[in-house]
Structures are given as C-alpha cells and as structure tokens.
C-alpha cells in the first residue's frame, strides 16, 4: 500500500520576516523591483566566521535546514533533495567576471568550488553528516516541484521515511539586470524579484503532529491534460487554489483564464506579492498553504480578490497551481492531516 506523505515543518528566509510566520498578520509590502531577503541575525545561529565563509544562498540554506531538522527532531533525514533555478549564481558570477575581466591565469579556486548547483545539497549533507540519498534539480520555474516530486514518489513507494526538501535561489544586482533584459523580471506590473530559501521536512508518519499532507504532485511540459488532472486531483473538492498571480498582465491572464475554466467559484489565493518572483518561488505556495491548513486560517491578504475571502469554514484541501511562462505547469494538492 502506498504511504502517505506529510509536511512536518517548514522554515523560510525571504523578503518577509525570517524563520517565522509574521507575514500572516504583518506582511511587509514593497514597491521596488528587486528585493533581497530579510536576513536573520546569523550570529545567533552560527559560530563566529562560519556564516561569513559561505555565500548568502549557502548560509540561508544551511540555516533553514538546521532549523527544520531541529524543529522536527530529525537530525539525519534519509534524503536531502534540493531545487534551485540558478544554483550558486553569486559565486558563479564572481568566477565568470574574473575569467572575463582578468583572463585565465590568476583565477582562484574558492568561487569555483562553491559555484555548482549541488553545492547547496552537499553542504547540508556535510553539515548534518547525512550519507543518504542526495540530489539537485535545476529546471527553471519548476525546480522546486521536481525536488518535491522525487521525494513524494520515493516516500509514496515506501523507499523513504524522511526527506529534507529545499528550494533556494539568490539574486544579485547584475543578474537582476540580465534577467530583466531577458524579459523574465522587472516587467511592468510584475511584483518584485525576490530570493527563495525554503526548507521542509517530509515524513511518512505521525500525521497528528504534521502541518499538512501532500496528496499528490503532478508536473507537465506543454499543454496540461486538464481533463485528466481534474479527475486525478479531484478539483471539485478543492477549497482554494494557490496561484502564481504576480501582477504582470500576460502571466495573470493565463491564471485567470485557466482558473475561470477549471476552478469556477473557487477562491484564488496568491503569494508572490509577499515573497516575490524567483525560479523557486513556488516553494512559498506550498509553505503558505501548509501554514494555512495547519492553522485553519487564510489571512485576507492572501485572497487575490478580497470579496472571495472566507473564514469560519473548514479548509480541507488547497491546490497549488504554478504555470511557468505557460510552458511548465505543476499541480500540488495539500490537505489537512487525517487526525
């Protein structure tokens, strides 16, 4: 029999207050096009100099991972699975700039050593001494979902009992300029470009202490097979749809069109106004939904249309729907744990 998959804890560092759910009641709003993360006081968590040696994506990843492990008391997860759109892009840039500007003779190894995408997953494994399954997905706007799908399949199939799944992306001023030129960020109406650091512990047991259950994960390339998805994910009984609405006309047009067709009458939620746009920002959809399900409360500001807001009603199932440039699509069903 297939095992159930639960999210036991989630920790985040983002444009909102770090390592907490302050955004529920006191969301920080931004008008700038590019926002770095609100950093926690690393001195409280790291030995002197420990954080400084690491690039910002690595120190965030390490901290949310440690906090997630601490909270769940699972210090040696059977798997560490990471999604990242651009990997350690800051170190990559440092090495690339030296290469382009200084030539090929005087380069130093440090930036190169911490430039590969899997540096993140490896660092977490080295830190926690985890010899288990370890992998990294880097697939544009569905990198996180690919990591989640891997963990889900293995746990569902009984191969894994615990997995630390993470989503990490950092942004630099230069890379923001580049992605603006490429037409991905900084567009008219679009929410700010953000950074993602989300770590979550998946387990196959103890639903009574978990935040929510991961019922299913579906990912597709090209046009989704909507009829199949409707049936397989049971759209009918979804209480709300957590969407990637981000204020940009073309992007929002896709969500509005598809949601009107496939989820008529369902309230649409959004999260990118809080956490920004990044390749792995869909991890915040899962994070915010898991928190709402466990607290049985959706704050007003998460509703895309305030008039659709509801309260004092049980929230059983949330569908996280991500359409990346109408090319990659992911569907994640989260539900309350059977208590």
């Amino acid at each position, binding site marked *: 029999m297939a095992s159930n998959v639960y999210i036991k804890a989630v920790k985040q560092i983002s444009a909102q207050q770090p390592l907490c759910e302050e955004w529920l009641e006191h969301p920080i709003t931004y008008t700038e096009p590019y926002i770095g993360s609100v950093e926690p006081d690393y001195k409280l968590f790291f030995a002197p100099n420990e954080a400084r040696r690491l690039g910002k994506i690595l120190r965030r990843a390490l901290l949310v991972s440690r906090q997630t492990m601490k909270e769940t008391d699972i210090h040696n997860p059977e798997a560490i699975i990471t999604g990242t759109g651009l990997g350690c892009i800051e170190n990559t840039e440092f090495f690339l700039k030296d290469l382009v500007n200084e030539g090929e003779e005087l380069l130093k190894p440090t930036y190169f050593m911490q430039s590969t995408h*899997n540096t993140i997953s490896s660092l977490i494994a080295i830190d926690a001494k985890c010899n288990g399954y370890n992998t990294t997905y880097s697939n544009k706007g569905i990198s996180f979902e690919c990591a989640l799908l891997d963990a889900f399949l293995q746990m569902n199939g009984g191969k894994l009992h615990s997995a630390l799944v993470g989503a990490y992306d950092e942004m630099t001023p230069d890379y923001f300029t580049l992605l603006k030129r490429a037409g991905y960020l900084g567009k008219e109406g679009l929410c700010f470009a953000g950074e993602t650091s989300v770590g979550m512990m998946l387990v196959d047991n103890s639903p009574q202490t978990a935040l929510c259950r991961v019922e299913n994960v579906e990912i597709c390339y090209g046009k989704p097979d909507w009829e199949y998805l409707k049936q397989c994910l049971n759209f009918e009984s979804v209480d709300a749809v957590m969407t990637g609405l981000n204020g940009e006309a073309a992007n929002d047009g896709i969500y509005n069109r598809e949601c009107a067709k496939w989820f008529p009458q369902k309230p649409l939620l959004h999260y990118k106004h809080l956490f920004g746009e990044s390749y792995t920002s869909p991890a915040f959809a899962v994070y915010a939904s898991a928190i709402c399900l466990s607290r049985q409360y959706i704050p007003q500001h998460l509703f895309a249309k305030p008039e659709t807001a509801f309260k004092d009603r049980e929230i059983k199932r949330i569908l996280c729907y991500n359409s990346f440039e109408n090319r990659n699509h992911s569907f994640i069903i989260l539900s309350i744990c059977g208590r």
Partner: protein
Amino acid sequence: MSQAVISSMGMVSAIGNSCSDALKALKEGRSGIEPLRFLQTAHCEFPVGEVKMSNEQMCSLLGIPQDAVTTRTSLMGMLAVKEALQEIDLQEKGKRIALISGTTVGGMDKSEQYYLDFLSNDNRNAYISTHDCGACSEMIADYFGIFTFVNSISTACSSAANAILLGAELIKSGRVDMVVAGGSECLTKFHLNGFNTLMILDKEPCRPFDASRAGLNLGEGAAYVVIESAESADKRGIEPLCVLKGYGNACDAYHQTASSPDGNGAFLAMKQALANAKLQPEDIDYINAHGTGTQNNDLSEGRAIERVFGDNIPPISSTKSFTGHTTSAAGGVEAVISILALRENFIPLNLNFSKSMPELSFTPSVDMETKKPLTNILSNSFGFGGNDTSLIFSKL
C-alpha cells in the same frame, strides 16, 4: 512493480558521433583525447576529449539554421537524443514521454563569450535565457516536440546517472510510458579553468588507477538511454538492450570537491545498487569505474571497491581514458559504453595503464577478453559534493 528496461540509446563523444562509432573506437583501443580544436582558451596545454564537430556542423546535421539561438550542450544533446529515438514511432497518440537531462555547465559556453554584452547592451539577450540547466533541456525537448515532462538534474559529475535513476523510478511509478534520460555537457573555459585552479588536470593523457596518475582530462559529450517498462517494450514488439536492474545514490558528506579517504559515499552507492538489484558482489562481471585519473578519486574509489568486493574483484576499467571526463554527461556516456560491453561481451580497456597503485589490491583491465559472458555490469558516477551514484545494467 514493473521492471525498467533500456530499449535504445544515443551518444556523441570524443570517440565518435554515434554508438556504433564509439563501439569501433573502444574495440580498436583508439582514444578520443587530443589537443584542443574547438574551445577557445589560453590553456591549450591540456589535452581534451572534444566532440569532433563544430557547432555549425552539428546545426547542419540537425537541420537547424546556423543563426539559431543554441548552445553546444543543447546541440550535442539533440544529436544524442535523435539517435536514441530513431527507431521509435513518435507519432503514437497519448504517449507520456519524459526527458530527464543532466547538466551543470548548461549554456555557459555562450555566457562566458557574451557576458560583457549581457551586462552592457541588448545584443545577446537571447543567450541570457539559455544560460541555465533547464533551458538546455527545454531546447533539446523543443527540437523533438514530443515530451510531456521535462526535468533537469544537476549533481555535477553524477548528473546523468541520477537522471537515469529518476527515469527508472518514473517508469516504475507508472506516471510516464517512456523516459529519455542521460546528460549533455560541452567544454567551457569556465570549468576548464575551474578544474585547473583545483590543480587536477593532467597535461598528459590521463592514467586512471595508475601509480603515476596526475589528474584528469576533461571531455564533452551527450548520451541518453530510452527507458520503459518490460511490458511496454513487449507491446511495441522490440527486444530491449538490457535491464536497468539496480541503482544506488548516496552522499559522501565529506568535502565539496574531494572524496573521503575510505570512499564511504562510493561504498554506500555500490552497496545500495547491489541490494536494489538483489545481486551479490560476485554477480558483477565488470565495473565501469568513475576512475577520473586524479590522485584522490582513484584511491578513494579503489578503497570503496575493495570494501564492497573483497578478494573477489571483477575486471575494472575507466573509459575516461577514451572519452575524457565528460562531467555531467559521464553517467550517460558510461551507461552507453557499459551497455555496448554487455551486448558485445568485451571488457573496455583502461588505456595508458603501466604501473599498479601500491595502495590497492587490484589493477585495471588491459585485456578485452572476458573469462565468462558478461551478465551484470556496475557503472559508477561520482560528483563534487560527494554526490555518488551507481547503476547496474543486466542482460535480459
């Protein structure tokens, strides 16, 4: 649970532009490691395993306009996937086909060429979006237009092996009907220089498992296998090439760019692959080693192999002496070489070997003859950060 079988494959590498070219080179003992021809770098002192085609030649072979926005990684990937798919009816309606591709360098060949344009003007904007790993896989997918799921894995030098591992899991889950899995990676100044700063490149042809080994030769290439269930192959009326019998993934959890002295991650990956395949160490007839030719890897991997196989070590070779280290593509390249060896019943040579390592009890294979028919082959792929993966390919 259904068995995952491999029904076809494709490869471009330093030893040829197809699987049959590669087979010929392997049997003739002809290495593809040569002086640099295509990569523009100051470091022409390092021999490399380049694919012997320019981007323009690859575009012509693929029927792509010369001015199309592509990267070398995606062009090589398209050629290898094309070979892998050549005998498959792609028009079958409703088929769910996944592309799972491993890469780390992605579109870095263009980024390092145009980075100053990226920062200062709009001339090369199209190449900004081809930088990342996902872009590379999507360019390959879009060339064929048949894929319903596209995913990219980036675990450095074990990327393609992990792509094959995930492919098998997806087939067993029943979520897709067919998977094309492997990896592609072109040479770039970025990682040639990166490896050079780590002082692990050899100016001579690499000598895996040799006492005089002094580093690796970088290579490039792309290799993919088509994975499906035994039932699916049966339904299509084809005889699979082999069974993907087992796999293991473990993390060395030791250092970002070095392997642990006792090869713990490698040991665990091989043990898990054997357990997953329900095989004993003595069932393995040949090991296609990761064998990069660096001091660190070959000693660490050698120790791990001794721990798993004890006194009964099967023939071992590192075919990186033919192809160079194709980094993220290596797991795919070596899967294809392993399957060629399995089908043709020969032990690929470990070129350039002359003196055994004093620390190890075994020496690599320098003889293609096999004492018994090959039934099970273990292929190792280890990456930076200790991302270690082992795959087992078996006769049907």
